[in-house]
Structures are given as C-alpha cells and as structure tokens.
C-alpha cells in the first residue's frame, strides 16, 4: 500500500462505544430513579432482571472468554444464599453486609473446589462442577440449624434490620441489586480490557500458541474461576435477600441458576459482553409472554437454545457485530493510523467494515 504513516495510536474505544457510554449513563440514572416513577412490581421485576444479568455476565466470562463451561454455578448461588442466612441469623450481621462476606467466602471455598475440578478437562469439567453443586446441596440439607432439607425463612426482626418500613426496604434492596449488577459488569469489562483479558482471549483462541507466548494457562483460568465464584456467591446472597426464604432445592437449583443463565447467554451471544444484556431482555420478554405454559415454556427455551447454537452460534449480538461491526463494550484493540486520508478509501475496500482501523490483537470473535 502506498503512503506514509505519520503517526498511530492503539485504541480500544470507538465512536459507537463513546455514544453507548453516554446512553448507559442515562439508562443508569433512569433505572436508579425507578423507586420514584415505578411501582413495587417494577422494582421486583427489575431486581430479578439485574440478578440474572449479573449471573449471565459471570457465566459468560467463564464459558465465553475462559472456555470453562460450568453447569454448576448454582453451587455458588446457593452458597451465597446460605451465607446470608448463617451470618444474619447466627452472626447478627445486617443482611446487606452479608453480601461482601458471601463474596469473600465464595471465592475462598472456590480455591480448593477449583484445585480439585481443574483436574477434569473440557466437557468432563462441566459435569464435575455439577457434582460439586450437588455435594453443596446435600451438605446444606444436612445442616439442621439452617433448616435442613425443608429450608428456612429470614426472621422478621432480621428483615427489619435492612430498614423498618417495607417501602424503604424495597427501595434499598432494589438499589443494592442495581449497584451489584453494575459492579459485576464493570468487573467483567475490566477483566477483559486488562492484560488478563488479552491472556484469556489468547487462551480461548489457541492454548498452545498462548502458552508459547508466556501465558500461564492454568493460573489465568484459575484466577477467573475463583473471582467469578466470589461474585456469583455475592449475587446469591442478593437473590435470597430478595426472596427472604431459602431451601436446598431452591438454592442449588440447576434450572434456575444455570439452565436459564445458559439460555440467556447463548441466545444473546456468548463471548460478548453485550450478549447477556440482550439475552436477559429476550428471556424476560419470553417469560412474560409464555410463563403460563409451564413445562412447555421450558421446552420452547430448550428448542430456541439448540436452534441458536446450530444456526447462529454467536447469538443475537454476534449477528449484530458481524453485520454492523458495532461494539458497545469494546475489548479489542485497534491500531488507528492517522493522517492518511488517501489511504482510508483503499483500506476500507480491503478491510470491509473495519474501515481504517487495523486490528492488531486478538478480537473477541470465536474462530469457526
């Protein structure tokens, strides 16, 4: 190609992502104000949506970026929920303060668990995580102080510790959910924009190649596993603050905390930060439309997930990116060459939608 490159810089943001950031701020402000313009129903529904969005973002970090397909994340959701009950009832801790406790303990327990199940690779790892979740369920069902197999409710005097009035309490729980989902998305985004994220993407695209470049595969994956377990436990505590009642079957439900989460991520677009966002919206729309169908609704979800996986494995958002090159949360690095107006036309022809930006690092697109 003719022409001289006068200067260049490596950038991650794009104009779309800058606009998206502004829109995001507006959306967050609107959501934060829901207690003033919405009712109790909206707050409860949005609270659930935030919890699912957070779980899906974390599962996506594991499966879509790290290649660790877990069907046992309910282990940590349930663990976080039980930590809420244990510390609030026996430790006298304010329920809201059990959330960070659950996060720390969830990450700590994930260290021995991870060390054990990391011995299984690929698909067997997936079933191993499920066994661990079953072990957690059976163990907590044996703890009679926490209600044993039939479960337990959070006593009213402890619930009042959050706030004495019901309306204020709903608001506080709602805002907590909003803050936590923002923390989780921020955590995932930061993970992927840092060195760690580059290492993860490299591992996902080719383990041998990344290893030869000095990436410690085991350690990188292990750190992500432990941190996302902590974050999942944190969301678990939140979910059971919303519910106020826990039982082993509800806390460690593979359907509620893993199957739905997988559907959300697959339908929205696995391996994309935006995927869980889109997926959560689609999932809750489907749920509102089809919830009366009961088992048939789940059947439909299963069919949709299979069709998406076979026909559009990158999900709805993957399709959008392929078609329009839009990224709301850019994690790939672009080499921007400046002062080469005459080159832009030629470059655009050859590089297609990427325009004058030449990608120099692994981009979050799954290889076929």
């Amino acid at each position, binding site marked *: 190609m003719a022409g001289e490159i006068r200067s260049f810089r490596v950038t991650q943001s794009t104009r779309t992502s800058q606009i998206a950031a502004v829109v995001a701020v507006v959306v967050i402000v609107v959501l934060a104000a829901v207690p003033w313009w919405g009712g109790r129903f909206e707050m409860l529904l949005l609270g659930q949506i935030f919890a699912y969005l957070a779980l899906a973002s974390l599962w996506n970090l594991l499966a879509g970026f790290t290649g660790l397909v877990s069907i046992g994340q309910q282990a940590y959701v349930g663990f976080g929920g039980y930590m809420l009950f244990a510390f609030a009832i026996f430790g006298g801790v304010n329920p809201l303060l059990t959330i960070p406790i659950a996060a720390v303990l969830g990450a700590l327990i994930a260290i021995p668990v991870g060390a054990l199940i990391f011995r*299984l690779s690929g698909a*067997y790892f*997936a079933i191993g995580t499920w*066994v661990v979740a079953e*072990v957690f369920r*059976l163990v907590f069902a044996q703890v009679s102080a926490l209600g044993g197999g039939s479960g337990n409710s959070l006593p009213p005097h402890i619930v009042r510790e959050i706030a004495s009035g019901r309306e204020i309490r709903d608001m506080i729980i709602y805002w907590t959910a909003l803050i936590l989902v923002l923390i989780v998305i921020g955590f995932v985004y930061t993970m992927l924009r840092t060195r760690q994220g580059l290492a993860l993407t490299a591992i996902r695209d080719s383990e041998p190649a990344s290893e030869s470049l000095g990436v410690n595969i085991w350690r990188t994956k292990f750190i992500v596993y432990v941190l996302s377990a902590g974050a999942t436990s944190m969301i678990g505590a939140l979910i059971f603050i919303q519910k106020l009642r826990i039982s082993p079957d509800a806390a460690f439900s593979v359907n509620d905390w893993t199957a739905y989460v997988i559907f959300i991520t697959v339908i929205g677009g696995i391996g994309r930060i935006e995927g869980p966002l889109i997926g959560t919206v689609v999932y809750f729309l489907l749920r509102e439309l089809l919830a009366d169908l009961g088992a048939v609704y*789940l059947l439909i979800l*299963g069919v949709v997930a*299979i069709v998406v996986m076979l026909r559009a494995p990158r999900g709805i958002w993957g399709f959008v990116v392929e078609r329009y090159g839009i990224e709301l949360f850019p994690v790939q690095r672009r080499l921007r060459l400046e002062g080469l107006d005459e080159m832009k036309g030629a470059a655009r022809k050859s590089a297609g939608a990427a325009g004058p930006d030449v990608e120099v690092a692994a981009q979050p697109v799954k290889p076929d």
Partner: protein
Amino acid sequence: MDWVNAVVQGVLVGGLYALFAAGLSLIFGVMRLVNIAHGDLIVLAAYVALVAMQTTGLDPLFSLLIVVPVMAVFGYALQRGILNFTLGRDILPPLLVTFGLSVIIQNGLLTLFTADTRRLRSGALEVSSFPIGGGIDIGVLPLLMFCTAVAVIAILQFIFYTTPLGRAFRATSDDPEVARMMGIDNRHVFGLAMALSLAVVAIAGVFLAARTNFDPSIGPARLIFGFEAVIIGGLGNIWGTLAGGVILGVAQAIGAQLHPGWQILAGHIVFLIVLAVRPRGLFPRVD
C-alpha cells in the same frame, strides 16, 4: 451382617451404574462428545418401555425387544440430524446442545406423563430372591441386572476390538481426518456409535425402571452416577468403568447404612477423593 448385606447390594447396584456409564464413555471415546442428556435419555427409555408394556402387555424384560431398537434408531437419527453438526474443535456447541436436549426431554416427559412416579412392574421377578448364606438374600432382579451389565460390557469390548465396526470406531477416534481418507463416512460411524450407546441406555433405563420408582426429573442424577463411575474407573477402560460403578454402588450403600441422608453424598465424596488422589482414575488405560 447388615454391613455385608449393604456391600453385596451395593455391588449389584454398581452393575446398573456401569450400564449408565458404558453408553456415556462409548460416545466420549468415539467422538469426544459428552452427552449431558444421557441421564434423561435413560429416563426416556424407561417411559418408552412403560408405553410398550401398556400397549402390548409385555413383561419389562421382553419390552427390551421394542425399547432397544426404538432407542437405537432414535440415537442414529439424533446424531445424524443434530449432534453431528455440533462436533468440532470447540467443546461448547455439543455441551450446550445436549444440555438443551436434556431440558427438552425432561419437560416433554413432564407434559406427556405428568410428574407422577411410575414403576415397571415385573410381577414375581420383582420380589423373588434366594439366600446365599449368612442371612443374606440376593434378589433375582438385581442379580440379573448385574449379569446383564457384565454381558453388555463384554459385548462392547468385543465389538470395539474385534469387529470391523469397532475398527471404524477406533479409527475415527484416533484421527477423524485420516479415517475419512481411508473411506470411512464419519457421520455414519458417529450415528452408529450413538445408536449403540442408546441401545445400552435402553437396557439401563428398563432395569432402572424395574428396580425403582421413576419420574421425569431423575435423569440428571443418573448422568452424574454414570459420569462418576467413568472417572473412578479410569477414562478409556471399559472394565474399569464396571469397577467404578461397583465402587460407587458400595460407597452409596455404606453411606446409606451410616445415615439415610448420606447415601448419595457418600458416592460423591468417594468420587472427589479419587479425583484428588488418582485424577486419572483407579484403572487408567495404559497407552
């Protein structure tokens, strides 16, 4: 004496777990596919047997004449119609598609048959037993189940190592590209492997349903038992899988003897201990 009895019964149940495991490890061996819906397919086979018995009035064991071919054909169609399109370098598509299949089977059965528990009644066979001394009785049905498991594993071993079909299985497992160059149609071979796997699943499903109550939700636990038997026994060693099933069965029986709530937990714990101490299983294949 209770303890000896528990161990004996545990060994016999172990045969059933080995049957759960055999189909699972066959598929993994041939095409590196872990079928998350495996447990639900076992339950599906139990319902096929139920329908077959209700329409023809057959005994559970004779219903195998219908259930085995039905499941085998279903397996071939499933592989050719869906699962072949998920195979590749990425482990995600087969995992997620079989996971979706698991949800579909569970909820499909729930819609068709409700959540009521069922049982395949086998009349006199169900209750007949004979003493082996020391006050221990062995049920005819559990013994039959164990012997069937041994026979199935022997047959699988025979198919794998002495027949042209087994050679095709091993060839595609070792190197699918080269196998294709040698004129093997991988898609067809994978279809046959899934058909064989689901034939074993059919036998496992009928014995499961003749031995205990079942309902649409019990599939995932069967997948986990089969998986644990595979890992305890050692990947790639089919007789090891039988040993793994027996160890799991005995562990559960001893756990149940200690405390009714510990039955399943004891099995999981033995699995985790094996994973910690001997991550390649107790009897790994010598390569």
